């Protein structure tokens, strides 16, 4: 439209808030991708379904089984983590050494089955979840922040901090990092790489579920919300640089900001094209990602 008015400071702030909100969700999903990638070198195409399950199971535990919201949320994340562990046990572990391609196809199959399961079990319609804390949004220098957005930021921050502690302060985390650097070497050092893969699937599922859980009060959820969020998370992980958790978070935030600022200053029709074009440019100019210092593959 040719009627674009001046963008004021508070509006810019509002775009940034929206970008940070969506970016946090992308970050949680991207973390899932990057953790599984680190241990298997495979892209988990079922990551979006973990996100969908996070909201869906919470709705089910809340409205179906009558649990209180906090409990339903907790049990949902635990359940989806269990689904991730189970998926690894049944479908990944037997072919763990078959190379990333085999694993990718298995996760594509998993994503289809999970999605279909959700439709059969929970129906085809969208399902709502109440906000964690009711009340009007908070005024922040003329921009509005919804209370649920604070929850999104808080829980994303908690997840990132917990993950950082896990990676830097625990034996398991060090084992996972060793696997990330070089799986063969890690195995030779006596690290149980199988266990690392299992745990990474559990973590990826839990983080995806957390993302789906915190965003559902704003968006509702449905059986088919997974794939598009999967693509966003994958894009965020690639944008940041695969295999590095902090880079994934940075990639997610960048993608979220890129989208909301595209809407704000350019066009909502082309916001995805703009984001993807930036992504392509990054890939072509800096194939290792924006925020990763990992060296390029050597000859």
């Amino acid at each position, binding site marked *: *439209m040719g*009627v674009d*008015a001046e*963008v*004021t400071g508070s*509006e810019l702030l*509002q*775009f940034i*808030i*929206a*970008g940070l*909100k*969506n970016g946090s*969700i992308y970050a949680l999903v991207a973390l899932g991708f990057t953790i599984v990638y680190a241990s298997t070198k495979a892209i988990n195409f079922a990551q979006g379904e973990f996100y969908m399950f996070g909201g869906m199971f919470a709705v089910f535990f809340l409205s179906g089984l009558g649990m209180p919201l906090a409990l339903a949320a907790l049990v949902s994340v635990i359940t989806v983590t269990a689904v991730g562990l189970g998926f690894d046990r049944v479908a990944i572990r037997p072919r763990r050494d078959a190379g990333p391609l085999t694993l990718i196809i298995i996760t594509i199959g998993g994503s289809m089955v999970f999605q*279909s399961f959700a*439709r059969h079990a929970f*129906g*085809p*319609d*969208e399902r*709502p979840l*109440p906000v964690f804390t009711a009340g*009007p*949004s908070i005024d922040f220098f003329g921009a*509005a922040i*919804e209370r649920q957005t604070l929850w999104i930021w808080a829980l994303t921050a908690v997840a990132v901090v917990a993950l950082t502690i896990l990676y830097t302060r625990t034996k398991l985390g060090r084992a996972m990092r060793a696997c990330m650097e070089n799986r063969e070497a890690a195995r030779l050092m006596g690290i149980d790489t199988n266990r690392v893969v299992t745990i990474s699937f559990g973590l990826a599922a839990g983080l995806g579920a957390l993302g789906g859980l915190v*965003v559902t009060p*704003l*968006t*509702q959820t*449905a*059986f*088919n*919300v997974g794939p*598009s*969020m999967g693509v966003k998370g994958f894009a965020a992980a690639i944008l940041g640089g695969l295999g590095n958790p902090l880079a994934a978070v940075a990639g997610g935030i960048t993608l979220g900001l890129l*989208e*909301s*600022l595209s*809407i*704000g200053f350019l066009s*909502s*029709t082309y916001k*995805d094209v703009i984001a993807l074009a930036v992504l392509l440019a990054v890939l072509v100019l800096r194939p290792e990602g924006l925020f990763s210092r990992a060296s390029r593959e050597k000859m």
Partner: protein
Amino acid sequence: MALALMLTLAMVGCQQGGEETTDLKPTEEPIKIGAVVSLTGPYAGLGGPEKNVIDMEVAKINAEGGINGRPIEVLIEDDGTDEKKAQAATAKLIDKEKVVALIGATGTGQTMAMRGDVDKAGIPQVSMAGGTVITQQFDKLVFQTPWSNTIVVPYTLKYLQGKGYKKVALIADDGGFGKDGIAVLKANLAKYGMTAVAEESFKPEDTDMTAQMTKIKNAKPDVIIMWTAGANSAVVLKNAEQLKIDIPIVGSHGNARMELVKGAGAAAEGFRFPAGKILLPDEYGTDSEEYKVAKSFVDEYTKKYGEAPSTFAGHAYDALYIIVDALKKLPADFTSAQLRDEIEKTKDFIGIGGTFNYSPTDHNGLKESDLVMYEVKGGKWVIAK
């Protein structure tokens, strides 16, 4: 090679055997109608109720003696919200099942995809999808039952004009429904003395529209028109509430779903949208024929499936009965051309979406007077003032 030939021959044999066994009652061979419905994929939520209605009403029609003594059979195929599957299903229904007419599809794209085969076979198709393109790209074989945007948009704008609104902001999804709505809206705004001060879009799978709504807020419109059908409607309403936008929001007939009210909660209060009278049959006046049809449909459906029917269920009801009523007027040895002509002659058919009057130039058949403006109040639908 010999093996392959034998296999092929065996398949032929099997197939013929199969066909013979389906004709259990040769004296009252059923009239076969095909239906292409989205039971899986993104439109599964719309197609499910459509299938329910068809199952329910076919049983009822046959219990009441069928069509001039002959039972009907509606063969329902799932298109998975996929155009290729819709085409395969169409080929199956036409060539294998030899149906006399087709209901469907649920979605506009799938409906359009069926057209090639429908044209080749020369049988009538009654679509349950609302895309303007379906009847605007005119095909004499293709009819539709939902209100198209060319009816709903003028109705809505007239209503808004009556409220004295001049500056409107448009927000729509960039799927078929939203894009079509935006196009019709922009073509009609000037006629009702309005101008668009903002136009925003989002993807059907998007989960946040605060950036778009911030821009709209900045444009200071008198009213926001939202044209979308899916779960995002609730997100738009909630984002508006979050941004403390107190500009009235008016939606489309795609919002006539209780999921929206549940999903948006308090943010849905005061939201208005146009739709048929089925949501509140009392609107017809309790002694009218329209009321009776709508009321008994709602009651029967609710009794059988435990929830009130959606407007999409109504589209399936209308499509089925338009074909059935035409069939009732035809001799037993009718041709598909006759059936098509008879459907086109549909006059004053009282359906769920409204009263249908097809003509050689109008295959949508509804009028603005079939619509009312609803408002969400206390988590319920009421007639908007």
